[in-house]
């Protein structure tokens, strides 16, 4: 039985057509993944299905039928009875999708009261049951900021499923979460929807996630559907070159690891580094006696989940923070206690690239000015020479020359991250510390950036400290890997050893959590 039927749907923002005549069906109880990159129109489609299109968007053609009713041009009043009751919605970023000033229990209660699934008297009990099912027993009195990202997403799934809807639309439900949390959340969603026979429309940029979770995959590009079919068929025999490209971009755990001759001299050494933060409630140990060596010309992957201390370690490696104890040695110089002034000449030799290319570039400056900043700070040449250097750097990171006069806001996420890399390269550094450099990017863009980093390393002999929560990404770029948990190293070694014969149970858990294992088994066959 067809539950959701989209026919020839067209949606425009002003004169730009975001969705261009797509057709799509979801049967009752079916899990359909809508896969595409940023700008493919997949989120616009998800919002149209739930009647949550922003006011700037207009449906210019086609129909959306839900449970036999044409809902395409329904007024808000009519949608209210559908949303929450028959149609659940799991939003993208759990960090901002709950009201920060209300207790989570009250936010779950809303949906039950709105659709009369509970009375004021019985609602407390129902909320408690929903939260217990979400793995959060007795947490109704909590505020969102007291819960982790994964716990918040469980609350949001609880809200979406509270009234036993026929269809749940999940818009990138785990793209803001760590890999292990992602797996648990998707398992949780799958268990609950399977039990109730709820259909799921899963929106994702990650073909690996789609492959693991969906009965059918619909691939979208530039507002059109390029390929659709049962997941098994799409993965085993992709018909379109675009799908093949997406499949290849999924970081793989079976690709050959990068190898390097041993014996490269160390460039950066962290010896027994410990970082404590004192606060009124006591002392938090963020980093516990970590040993880490980045050899010259190599990449060391530092893997851990949120709160594992990996970003603090990165800040110490860059000497933006001082360790509570332990030593930081850069190219033979102990910089643990170096003053700002003494560090300054060394600073040009180690540069950072941050996670979020949307906030790490000043939106008011042109790209040329952004890349010029470190050059200016170290008085590198005159204005004309610096501009030539900026142009050269843009060429190195494969951005068109005209980019130099544009602003960061005019660029895509991947382009911005290339700019951030160009800026980091400006002073000819030896070491680049990359803190989750690709986790804000689509899988296909991720792949391009990783390839760029490998190429630059080979050309320039750079060393990387590459920080990520995603083992598959780390495997693609690293020679060696260090796994961090709760501030301590649980396992470290060459990539091939750690990935092929993990010793620590936590490493095994991380490896299990990597999405898209079915992609590999599909393509291997």
């Amino acid at each position: 039985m067809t539950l959701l039927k989209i026919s020839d749907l067209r949606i425009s923002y002003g004169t730009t057509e975001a969705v261009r005549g797509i057709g799509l069906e979801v049967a009752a109880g079916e899990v359909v993944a809508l896969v595409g990159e940023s700008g493919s129109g997949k989120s616009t489609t998800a919002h149209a299905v739930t009647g949550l299109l922003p006011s700037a968007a207009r449906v210019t053609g086609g129909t959306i039928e839900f449970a036999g009713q044409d809902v395409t041009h329904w007024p808000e009043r009519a949608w209210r009875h559908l949303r929450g009751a028959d149609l659940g919605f799991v939003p993208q970023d759990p960090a901002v999708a709950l009201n920060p000033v209300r207790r989570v229990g009250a936010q779950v209660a809303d949906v039950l009261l709105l659709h009369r699934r509970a009375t004021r008297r019985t609602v407390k009990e129902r909320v408690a049951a929903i939260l217990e099912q979400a793995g959060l027993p007795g947490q109704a009195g909590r505020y969102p900021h007291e819960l982790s990202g994964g716990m918040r997403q469980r609350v949001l799934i609880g809200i979406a499923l509270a009234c036993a809807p026929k269809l749940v639309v999940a818009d990138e439900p785990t793209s803001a979460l760590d890999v292990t949390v992602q797996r648990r959340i998707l398992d949780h969603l799958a268990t609950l929807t399977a039990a109730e026979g709820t259909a799921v429309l899963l929106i994702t940029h990650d073909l690996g996630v789609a492959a693991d979770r969906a009965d059918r995959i619909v691939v979208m590009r530039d507002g059109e559907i390029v390929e659709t079919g049962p997941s098994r068929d799409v993965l085993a025999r992709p018909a379109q070159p675009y799908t093949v490209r997406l499949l290849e971009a999924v970081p793989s755990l079976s690709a050959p690891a990068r190898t390097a001759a041993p014996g490269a001299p160390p460039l950066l050494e962290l010896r027994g580094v410990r970082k404590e933060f004192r606060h009124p409630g006591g002392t938090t140990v963020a980093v516990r006696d970590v040993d880490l060596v980045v050899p010259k010309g190599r990449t060391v992957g530092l893997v851990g989940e949120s709160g594992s201390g990996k970003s603090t370690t990165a800040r110490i490696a860059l000497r933006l923070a001082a360790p509570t104890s332990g030593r930081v040695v850069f190219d033979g110089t102990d910089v643990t206690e170096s003053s700002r002034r003494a560090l300054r000449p060394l600073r040009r030799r180690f540069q950072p690239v941050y996670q979020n290319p949307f906030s790490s570039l000043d939106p008011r400056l042109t790209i040329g000015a952004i890349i010029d900043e470190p050059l200016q700070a170290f008085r590198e040449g005159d204005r004309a020479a610096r501009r030539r250097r900026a142009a050269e750097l843009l060429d190195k990171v494969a951005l068109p020359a005209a980019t130099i006069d544009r602003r960061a806001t005019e660029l895509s996420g991947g382009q911005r991250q290339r700019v951030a890399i160009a800026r980091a390269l400006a002073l000819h550094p030896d070491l680049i510390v990359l803190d989750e450099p690709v986790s804000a990017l689509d899988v296909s863009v991720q792949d391009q950036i990783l390839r760029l980093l490998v190429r630059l390393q080979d050309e320039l002999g750079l060393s990387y400290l590459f920080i990520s929560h995603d083992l598959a990404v780390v495997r693609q770029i690293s020679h060696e890997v260090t796994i961090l948990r709760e501030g301590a190293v649980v396992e470290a070694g060459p990539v091939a050893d750690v990935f092929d014969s993990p010793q620590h149970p936590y490493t095994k858990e991380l490896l299990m959590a990597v999405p898209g294992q079915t992609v590999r088994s599909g393509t291997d066959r």
Partner: protein
Amino acid sequence: MARYLARRVAQGVFVLWAAFTASFVILYLLPSDPVEIMLASTGSMGELDPAAVAALRAEYHLDDPFYVQYGIALGRFARGDFGTSIPQRVPVTQLIGEAFPETLRLAAAAFALALLLGGGTALLAGLLRGGWARRLLLSLPPLLVSVPSFWAGLILLQIFSFRLGWFPAIGNQGAGSVVLPAVTLALPTAAVIAQVLAKSLLSTWREPFVVTARAKGGSRPGILFRDVLRHASLPGFTLVGMTVGNLLAGAIVVETVFSRLGVGRLVEEAVSAQDIPMIQGLVVLSALVFVVVNLAVDLVYPLLDPRIRPSRAVRA
């Protein structure tokens, strides 16, 4: 919590001391001679009796060096003694004690009214999705802010007491006498509240959690009152401290226009008579009001915003 409170009280004491000292220095540096003003105000125009002048100068320690004068004044200030009002010959604290409750009543009424009017306007604008009604509503606050309150007061007097005779024009007698001054005082404050709250409501509507609320099937008014209002009122709440300043400054004009007894009137009189002890007393009173109100705001804020309460975070 106790340590926090102790620190805040110490800060408050420091603010009071600073306000006292600053006003003392400024008044000391003023070129006018308080004794001459004093004698002039008691009617002994023309010839000044040198003996009387000398006696008064001695009484007020005007011939002593600055630090002695300051030391004596500070000692009195610490005991809550601000001396005697020069023209009225009555202790400053007694005058303020009589006037303050009147101003408090006026300000409280005005504040409640401002909250009602300003909050109501912003909420109504928040309920309307757009269109001319909303634009009209949102153009009211800037208009109200730019109306001088003495003019608004005179217009209200003209209509409601002289023409219609509903309320008394002047004085402090009865509840009716508070209405017109309170309205006059409330209008600019209401306008500020409306502007801040309307803007905050508008930006809160764009928060992602509103999409979640809509996805639950909530109606616009439902979402406004359940989810948006509390979140949006936070920036407005910090404004309360400043609002009190508006009300105090506004009271000077309003109490004069309506010939009401009150702190505002005292300020106006003390300044025109260069009544130095009185001015100092009033400066310190204003500082005290600010300190108390801001402390109250900071203590209540965590009740409204759970994020700044001591955290009880749990780990996944």
